[in-house]
């Protein structure tokens, strides 16, 4: 890991002005402790930069990952080279693999005008990996109307990319995916992150914050057909980085450790991410707005998602 971290720090310092501003001189990393002594990268550091100062090479910009929601407090879109885009696809593949769903399972993605571009990228990835996928644009539909459209498509998996649909009664779809709904686990039968009888308590829903996929009312708990076994996966994503981890029905978020080095700030439990496979706009010790507890292995438990 040290070699990977050293490589990304050296690369960033040599090629990206924001890191030269932040570090002042080239860091010498001889241990993980040296890495952990590097200053955090914060949103405020980006606020004072122009766009060409936050990437390695303007000519390599190939794609822009749309933000999760149209509004974001991060001042730039997620910029990617073709290599970065390929890595993002690989991360997506990793996340899908953790779910155990069959190859070729069909998806329906529900979205709205605020979240549609980000959800469109998810559709793009699903189609790339040969999961037949349709996307329904939710407007002033009633839940029943949307359910009717979904039932016409009879998907194996449903991805909720809108905050307009909060009731899924009797939809009878075995696999549900959400984005940044850390406080909600619809899996039936429910499983705690530590297995049966575990001590973890799902935190209450908190209003506001990034993504806004959560229901506006904490009382709007979804219900499913009683006899159905539901598996609920929640994708943890950040507009400026992309998708990072997936929560399995067991309750913890799994992330690919070939692509991310994950820490938390011991003073406030804020999740700190380092991207290991980005060449255009790597994030090194990026202090997110989200809180988490690190678990054994490549797992963490989100306890709060803040505003981005």
């Amino acid at each position, binding site marked *: 890991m040290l070699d990977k971290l050293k490589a990304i720090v050296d690369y960033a310092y040599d090629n990206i002005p924001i890191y030269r501003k932040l570090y002042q001189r080239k860091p010498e990393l001889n241990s993980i402790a040296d890495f952990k002594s590097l200053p955090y990268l914060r949103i405020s550091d980006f606020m004072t930069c122009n766009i060409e100062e936050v990437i390695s090479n303007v000519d390599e910009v190939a794609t822009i990952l749309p933000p999760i929601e149209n509004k974001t407090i991060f001042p730039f879109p997620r910029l990617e080279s073709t290599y970065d885009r390929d890595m993002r696809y690989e991360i997506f593949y990793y996340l899908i693999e953790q779910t155990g769903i069959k190859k070729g399972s069909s998806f329906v993605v529900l979205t709205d005008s605020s979240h*549609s571009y980000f959800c469109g990228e998810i559709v793009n990835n699903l189609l*790339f990996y040969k999961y037949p996928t349709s996307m329904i644009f939710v407007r002033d539909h009633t839940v029943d109307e949307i359910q009717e459209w979904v039932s016409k498509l009879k998907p194996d998996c449903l991805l909720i990319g809108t905050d307009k649909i909060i009731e899924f009664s009797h939809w009878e779809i075995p696999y549900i995916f959400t984005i940044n709904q850390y406080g909600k686990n619809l899996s039936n039968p429910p499983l705690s992150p530590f297995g049966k009888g575990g001590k973890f308590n799902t935190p209450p829903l908190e209003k506001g914050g990034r993504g806004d996929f959560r229901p506006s009312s904490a009382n709007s708990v979804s219900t499913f057909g009683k006899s159905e076994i539901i598996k609920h996966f929640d994708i943890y994503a950040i507009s400026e980085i992309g998708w990072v981890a997936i929560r399995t029905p067991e309750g913890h978020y799994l992330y690919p450790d070939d692509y991310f080095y994950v820490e938390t700030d011991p003073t406030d439990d804020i999740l700190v991410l380092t991207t290991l496979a980005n060449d255009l706009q790597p994030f090194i010790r990026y202090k997110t707005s989200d809180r988490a507890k690190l678990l054994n292995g490549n797992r963490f438990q989100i306890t709060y998602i803040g505003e981005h």
Partner: protein
Amino acid sequence: MILDPGFECADQQKLLDEVIKQGLSSLFIRVYDHFSYYHWRFDEAGVDPCMDPMDALELLPLMTKHDYGMLERDAFICANKHLYHAETTSGSTGRPKRRFQSLTDELNELKLAMRVFAGFNVSKDDVIVFMDVGNPSIYIWFAKAFENLGVKNTIYYGIQSDFDRSLNKLMSLDPTILFTVPSLLARSYETILRMYKENKDTSLQKIIYFGEKLDDRFRKRIEEELGVKIFSHYGGTETSTLGGECSAHDGIHVYTDVNMPTLIDPKVINETTQEGEVAWTTMQMDVQPVIKYRIGDVVRIDRAKCRCGRTSPRIKVIGRTDEGFSLYGEKFYYDTFLNTVYSNLNETGFLQIILSSEQNHDKLSFILPEKLKSKESEILESLYYVNELEFFLEEGFVQLDVQFVPGSHFTGRKIPCIIDHRVYQ
């Protein structure tokens, strides 16, 4: 439908004097300050950005796809924190050609798309299904334009090359409008036709296509067999939406208050109609506008008032300059393939591309000098990874073929770079 007298059925001379000239002047002053490319071009042509805009437009040189690449860096830096989105194509030099957009661009383009879609006489009760094989981002944008027109039900329907399986839920959705690209429609047409023959009680009324030309004979066949009206949306990656058909189906209305066409060496057909290669000037594009940009279409422009009441000029695309072609709505350029073949070999040489239709896919044949035969596997490998082509190959929508011919094939006579035998073109 009520048309806006200020634009849709305005007197064209009045529109030119009161709207277009102002739009051009403002564009010229803005780009001269912000783009080193335009600064150079204006100075070289002796154009003062504050001079009469029509004279300036006349004097300015035509812009090529190669020139377009020179805008990208300035556009990106200028957009800075307003950068919102990027459209890319395969690019003419092997690197993706990029159009950067701000949120202002998104909103301006939505406004124009709404004007175009209004010409399709959509109703708020329509069910619009966007059918495609890959990235849905352009359809998201279309869906937003339809939403602004009051349409409630829009669904992106992603399909794969196994059409019988992929399309089996289309009947359940029962769209009133199917929105897709001609090549995909052509590939899936037998399946679609069979499904509609087996299900008589369906609601399909219109098909809207974009991204490619639709062969007139194929169009007529679809209209007759499916009993639908067909409409065309016209635009390009670098220009965004340019226009669309109306219910009179007599050409594509282009909106000159937003995008100004210039014909290169126009040929006069009659009092109101001219023909030639078209170059576009985009007046409302915020981050990366173009001036007299050659998108590669040869068109016929008719400036007579349309039966629908619109006074905006109507164009018919009658051909393409031979530097590019489209696969499933994705644009590819001859130079991309030429550079791909030869850059890894550290050589220069000849290439001819022949496109043809097979039963369920397009075939892309590369004709190369026989001296390269020993490097066939390297060539195939590098072609495989051309931007966006990989997906079509993996999905079985496109098949590659390399043929080696004697060098005299290329030197004995002038041969076209691209020959397109596909029937739906």
